[in-house]
């Protein structure tokens, strides 16, 4: 079990990395009036068959040959459903996968959103060959991080460069704080 929603996001996004996606879109949407926190992770990776999709949500089905699947998706699903929310995963071979977890914001069982800055920063700086589009919105306010823009400005994807890496960390931290105090 993870202790933060942001850790689930980091873990599930690693599946997209392994699926050889070239673009991973992550969105965190807070809707206070609707009492919902919605997390979407979408990739253009290799996708899964219908059979595989059924298997990834069942933690006990995993065998050694499908070990790369494991507990990540079941943890994510459980974290949303235990708040009274919902979970879905849609995938198509050769097209990609979309995972969505909806949390009831005010539920006592909703774990903290946690450190989204660290989650997105480590995804971006550790997988510089992949593009990320991250949007964080709360009740009408929002910001986006698009590594395609960074790539264009820099003329390269050197996000691990110390100065660039520090910029990405500050960019995330400051913009998170301006939109909502729910994420670190």
């Amino acid at each position: 079990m993870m202790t933060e929603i942001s850790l689930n996001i980091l873990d599930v996004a690693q599946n997209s990395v392994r699926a050889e996606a070239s673009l991973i879109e992550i969105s965190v949407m807070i809707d206070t009036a609707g009492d919902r926190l919605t997390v979407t992770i979408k990739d253009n990776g290799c996708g899964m068959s219908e059979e595989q999709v059924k298997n990834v949500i069942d933690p006990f089905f995993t065998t050694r040959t499908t070990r790369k699947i494991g507990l990540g998706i079941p943890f994510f699903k459980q974290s949303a459903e235990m708040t009274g929310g919902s979970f879905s995963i849609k995938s198509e071979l050769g097209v990609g996968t979309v995972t969505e977890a909806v949390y009831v914001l005010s539920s006592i069982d909703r774990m903290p959103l946690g450190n989204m800055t660290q989650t997105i920063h480590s995804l971006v700086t550790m997988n510089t060959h992949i593009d990320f589009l991250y949007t964080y919105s709360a009740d009408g306010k929002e910001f986006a991080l698009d590594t395609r823009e960074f790539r264009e400005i820099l003329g390269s994807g050197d996000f691990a460069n110390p100065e660039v890496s520090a910029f990405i960390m500050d960019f995330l931290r400051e913009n998170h704080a301006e939109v909502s105090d729910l994420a670190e």
Partner: protein
Amino acid sequence: MKSLDELKAIRDRMKGQVDIREEGSDATRVVVGMATCGIAAGARPVLTAFSNAVQERDLQNVAVVQTGCIGLCMYEPIVEVYKADGEKTTYVKVKPEMVEEIIDQHIIKGNVVTKYTIETAKLG
């Protein structure tokens, strides 16, 4: 709101700079296990601490990378350090507070911090 103008300034500073950060054969590799088991056990702040420490000390020949499940989930977070000569050290149950010591003692000075290694953990 923090804007992208700052990134343009960084780009201008980077121009003309020779990239001396090469992951050649003399590089030390710090490999952090970032599968479900690692993340659940606290690998993310450990990874961030290593990245930050390497940046702060401006260590040009150290690469911090991530990997999947190493197969010893009960010892997570696991960090493997590969020195240039191929020597591998496995640190287990790593916490962010241990990172400075591992960097300063092992990666810079070459002395393995044995109290955090898997061999010591197995002795109980």
